[in-house]
Each structure stands twice: as C-alpha cells, then as structure tokens.
C-alpha cells in the first residue's frame, strides 16, 4: 500500500474513532461518567438496523433511521432506568452501572441474534475507489466517512452554539448547581445527552461495521480506541477528540502496515507516552474558580 493511501485510510478510521469519541465525551461532560456501555449500545442499535433489513426487508436508509430513533430511546432508557434510580451515587458507582449495562446488552444481543458473525453491509463500500489525484486513491467508504463526520460535527457545533437547549447543555456541563438555579431541569439535560450520545455512537458504529464484521463483540475494540482518542484529546473538548481520533487512526494504520502484529497495541503505547508527559490530555482546559 502506498503512503498516500495509508494516510487517507488512517484519517478515515480516525474520523470514525473521533465520532465515537464524541459520543463518549458528550456524556462525560454532562455527568463526568465514562459510559463503558457506549460501544455495546451502538452495537445493539446496529443490530436493530440489521434486523429491519434481513427480517423485514426494509431498505437500508429506513433501517438506518429506525436504528437512530432506537438509539435515542435506548440512551434515555438507560439513563432513566439504570442511572437515575441510584441513590446518592458516587461517580465510581455510576461507572460500574454502565459496565453492568454493557454486559446486559451484550448478553441480550447474543441471545437474540446469536454470537455468529452476520452479513451486514452499508451502501458505502471500501472496494469502490475513486482516483482524485495521481497516487491518491480514495474509497467510497472513506468519502462517506469524511462527509458524515463533517456533517455531524457541523450540526453539533451549531447546536451547542445557537440553540437554547444546546446552551443549556453547556451550562449544565460547566456548573450543574447554577444551571439548576436558572430553572434548567438538569435531569432532563442528562437524559437528553445520553440520547444524543447514543445517536452519534450508532452513526459511527454503522461506518465502522463496513470495515469489520457484525457480531455482538464488534464494537469493543473501536470503543477502546475511541476512548483512547477522547483521553488523548483531554476528555473535554470536541476538537480535541477529533484530533485525538485522527492521531490514533494514523498511528494504527501506519504501524499496522509496518508490522501487523503490533497494530492493536501501538496506538495505546503512544497514548501512554503522551499521558506521561501531559496527564490531562493534549487539549484540556482547566478553570480555576475565582473568589
């Protein structure tokens, strides 16, 4: 594989990780909970799309929208029935709850659809390629990833900047106590951010399925990569996560090409090194409260 192709594919994979990392940090920012169920929730929603296509014969886009809606509901469901009932929760307790949700959903998916690998394809294949410039070969999949990532990030940026609920979400992230005083129902904001995160997660997972296979475990590794990307970006800033995703994707792709055996590990090694030098991530901002 030539250098240019590695670069493009790495960036595309990085964009997927970045998108999925967004799903992780949206929840982290509102409630400081790291959602370890994010990968499995996305996996489950992809299975919904799979179910619609294979068993009911719906076209892909209908199934895609159905799975987006399902993902939103699943997010609210998990927040409402698993996290909210926790009495006087500690952060660690909430994180353990998300691990429980992860196990539960993985078990459910295995029971419903079986642990085998299923045939699931999205309309963007990475075997169809375009030649943009001499030497630069871009697959249809990569083009789709870039366009979708761009659209999602633009929508997110506009949403957080200009809508009332977006501003309320940012306010809640920064100071939950003051947000409550302003009359913001912070519980609802948390539920909403779970739905939001789940929807973005399934979008990213759809794109990732094109490169892997569909089975109940397929999101575990991408989730860890995305989480690593989020940590690298500082867990707080949206551009940080995207850049972190890009870095993880590139490292993985280049080292994977040089020595495939090391592919899954290199990215994590680099991250450990980066975190040794900058423990709060590359783009974290810290505000000190002024008295």
């Amino acid at each position, binding site marked *: 594989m030539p250098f240019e192709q590695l670069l493009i594919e790495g960036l595309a994979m990085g964009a997927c990780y970045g998108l999925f990392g967004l799903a992780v940090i949206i929840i982290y920012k509102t409630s400081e909970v790291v959602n370890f169920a994010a990968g499995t929730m996305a996996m489950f929603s992809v299975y919904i799309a799979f179910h619609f296509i294979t068993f009911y014969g719906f076209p892909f886009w209908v199934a895609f929208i159905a799975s987006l809606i399902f993902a939103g509901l699943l997010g609210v469901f998990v927040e409402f029935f698993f996290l909210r009932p926790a009495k006087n929760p500690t952060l660690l307790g909430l994180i353990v709850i998300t691990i429980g949700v992860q196990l539960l959903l993985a078990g459910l998916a295995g029971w419903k659809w079986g642990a085998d690998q299923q045939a699931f394809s999205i309309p963007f294949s990475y075997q169809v390629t375009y030649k943009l410039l001499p030497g630069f070969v871009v697959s249809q999949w990569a083009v789709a990833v870039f366009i979708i990532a761009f659209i999602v990030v633009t929508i997110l940026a506009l949403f957080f900047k200009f809508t009332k609920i977006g*501003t309320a979400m940012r*306010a809640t992230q920064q*100071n939950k106590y*003051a947000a*409550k*005083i*302003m*009359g913001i129902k912070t519980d609802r904001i948390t539920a909403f951010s779970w739905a939001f995160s789940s929807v973005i997660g399934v979008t990213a997972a759809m794109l990732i399925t094109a490169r892997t296979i569909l089975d109940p475990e397929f999101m575990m590794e991408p989730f860890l990569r995305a989480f690593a990307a989020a940590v690298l970006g500082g867990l707080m800033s949206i551009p940080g996560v995207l850049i972190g995703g890009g870095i993880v994707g590139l490292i993985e792709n280049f080292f994977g090409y040089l020595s495939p055996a090391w592919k899954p590990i290199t990215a994590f090694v680099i991250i450990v090194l980066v975190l040794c030098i900058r423990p709060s991530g590359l783009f974290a901002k810290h505000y000190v409260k*002024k*008295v």
Partner: protein
Amino acid sequence: MLKVNNIETWYDLIRALHGISFEIKEGDIVALLGSNGAGKTTTLKTIMRLFYDLKEEQPEKGTIEFMGERIDRKDTAEIVKMGIGYVPEGREVFPELTVMENITIGAYTRNDRAGVKADMENVFHHFPILKERKGQQAGLMSGGEQQMLAIGRALMSRPKLLMLDEPSLGLSPILTKEIFDIIKNINEKDGVTVLLVEQNVNMALKYSNFAYLLENGRIVRADKPEVLREDEDIKEFYLGIATEQSVKGYKRYRRKVRFR
C-alpha cells in the same frame, strides 16, 4: 409575598434550621443577617428547594408560601418560573460561556422574546460594564464583574423576589457600595422585592427596610434596622462597637440569646 413558616432543615442527623419563620412584604428590602454557620444560606437553599438531591422532603417541617401558593414541595424550575431569582454565594457564573450567553441562559424558563430583549436592555442599563464585556468568557472576568453578571443573570428571569446570597463576598468596600446601590436601584425602579443575606451587617442595615438576625439556626431578632442598630448585642458582636465591659473587666464574647 414570601411567608416562611416554622421550617426545619436537616443535614443528615444535624438540624441546621430549628424552626424559622419570617415574612417578606412586597417592595421591601429584607436582610437576613448572622455569622458563619448561622443558617442563612441554608434558608435560601431550602426556599429554592436545592436540597432535593439530598433528600426529597426538605424542609422536613413547616411551610413556605410564595404569592399565596405553597412552594415547599415544588421543583426548582417551577419556583424560578413563579418569580424567585437566586444569586448564589460565590457567584457561580458559567465560566466558559460568554457574558451574553450567561445572561441569555438566565431567561431559560421564559418564552416571550420581546420581553427577554427588553429585560436584557434593562440589565445592561443597570450594569453598563456587562455590555462592554459582552463577548468575553465569564470565567475571565474579575470578581466584581462576575458578581454583577450573576445579579444580571438572575434578573433575566424577571423575578418578583430576588434573593442575594452575600453579594459583598470578596469585594472591596467601594465595589460593595456600588453593588448595594445597584440593588437599591433595582428594588426602587423595577419594583423587585429583595431578600439580602449578608455577613456585612453594617452595610445590610444601611440598605434594608427590615432585618432578621439568625443565630445557630434560629431567628433571635427581627426588627427595623434603626432599632437593631441601637441594640447593645448587635452593636457589640456584629458592628464591632465595644461598649460595655463586664463587672470584672473582661470582654464578653457572647451573650446567651433566648429563642423567640
């Protein structure tokens, strides 16, 4: 307008408020005074129902009425909507939002755009500095400016009753006076009733029409500021004017006050 009737608030097994009753009449500036740990902030938080997370039934006993309606079991968002604005202790602005966004979020519970716009102009009229700093991140402003922002933000919900928790905290005397003048102005021009919680007893007595003195979760004095100013105990322990020496010549540190 606000009627607090014999409320008790508990932090786990510790009773912070031992049955507090007071009343605020429309158009007044009422001061709630007391030293550290007297229960001033707890009173305000109980009124706003901010202990809901801790325990659903707070206050445990007693009732709170606002405009003739009971609010002691209502949600904070509803209470804000009914017209109570709260400026929390230590300002609590949203540090990464701009000044403008901070002010806009204050009107979160409202839907009338024209009214919000008019109120925004009003806030900028009271605090011209905020207009200059419109696009700045709130966390980067000075303490006094943040305090002004917190008051402006609370005004955006168009409150009938504005509750201020230690507006003078950490401010220079000149700035404190400026803020108190603005509060007086808001009270007179906009007709907003004010409940003022202060440790700076001298200042608070100057600006209020009525004052309550809290000690260990109980109200021990309730009177007009002119009367309280002349009270021997208040003179000695809160205003720092040492007048009386005991027979033996020791300085007294505390006089036992009976609960009334």
